[in-house]
């Protein structure tokens, strides 16, 4: 297997891309960029036979990964089907980290205490970060997972940045022509908008 350059501040974001998850998704972007990290998502990866290979390559190139299992549930469209993408990508990541413990660290985020251990009992013994489905909870758990000694942003500061990011969304969507925040064309724009707000807070 070709050795990939691991980006030391990159975080593979394994989350559902649906409308109900929008505020949590934006909270992850705000929080991670505020902490000086570089989120990576599978949004830009097309479907097809090479998709899994490209997801695996993305995981390998990231030093950290964050797996949100709060919406592993049955969807409404017939036939009702559980969402297995997140657990599948978590499984791939766990195997990769087992083989390369110095190169990858993974975190499981959930909204409810002990639910992940119930749905995936093999996770017993794993400390999940419980965000309670709130934006504040996401920020708090990101700060618990990723600790900075210098230039540490606080949860209230991250929430303030996040509130400001939400104001940018309609303008950024208009500019890019995106119909949803989950479209690949707007992903980088959202990261840069958070970066601009964070710089004002930290570096101005």
């Amino acid at each position, binding site marked *: 297997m070709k050795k990939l350059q691991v980006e030391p501040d990159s975080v593979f974001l394994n989350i559902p891309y649906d409308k109900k998850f929008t505020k949590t998704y934006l909270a992850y972007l705000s929080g991670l960029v505020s902490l*000086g990290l570089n989120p990576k998502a599978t949004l830009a990866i097309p479907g097809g036979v090479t998709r899994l290979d490209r997801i695996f390559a993305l995981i390998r190139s990231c030093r950290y990964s964050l797996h949100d299992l709060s919406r592993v549930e049955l969807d409404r469209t017939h036939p009702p089907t559980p969402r297995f993408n997140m657990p599948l990508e978590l499984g791939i990541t766990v195997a990769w980290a087992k083989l390369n413990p110095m190169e990858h660290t993974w975190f499981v985020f959930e909204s409810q205490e002990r639910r992940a251990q119930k749905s995936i009992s093999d996770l017993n013994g794993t400390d999940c970060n419980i965000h309670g489905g709130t934006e504040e909870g996401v920020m708090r758990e990101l700060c618990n*997972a990723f600790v*900075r000694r210098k230039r540490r942003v606080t949860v209230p500061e991250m929430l*303030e940045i996040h509130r400001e990011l939400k104001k940018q969304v309609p303008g950024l969507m208009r500019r890019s022509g995106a119909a949803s925040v989950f479209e690949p064309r707007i992903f980088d*724009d959202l990261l*840069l908008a958070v970066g601009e707000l964070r710089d004002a807070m*930290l*570096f101005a």
Partner: protein
Amino acid sequence: MGRSVIITTPIPTVDEMAKRLRIGKKRLATIREIVHKNSAKFLDRNNSASSRRKVEAREKAAS
């Protein structure tokens, strides 16, 4: 896996982020324009707070 990790990598500025994401200056300028239009109060407050802290630090160093 572990519950927390210490991050030691420097926080990249937005210009450094744009370079890494291969975003051109024009696109970055447009994004900045949108942010400055929608968050003028936030930016003013933080810029002035930061300037105030710098002035205070300079005065403290001089005394």
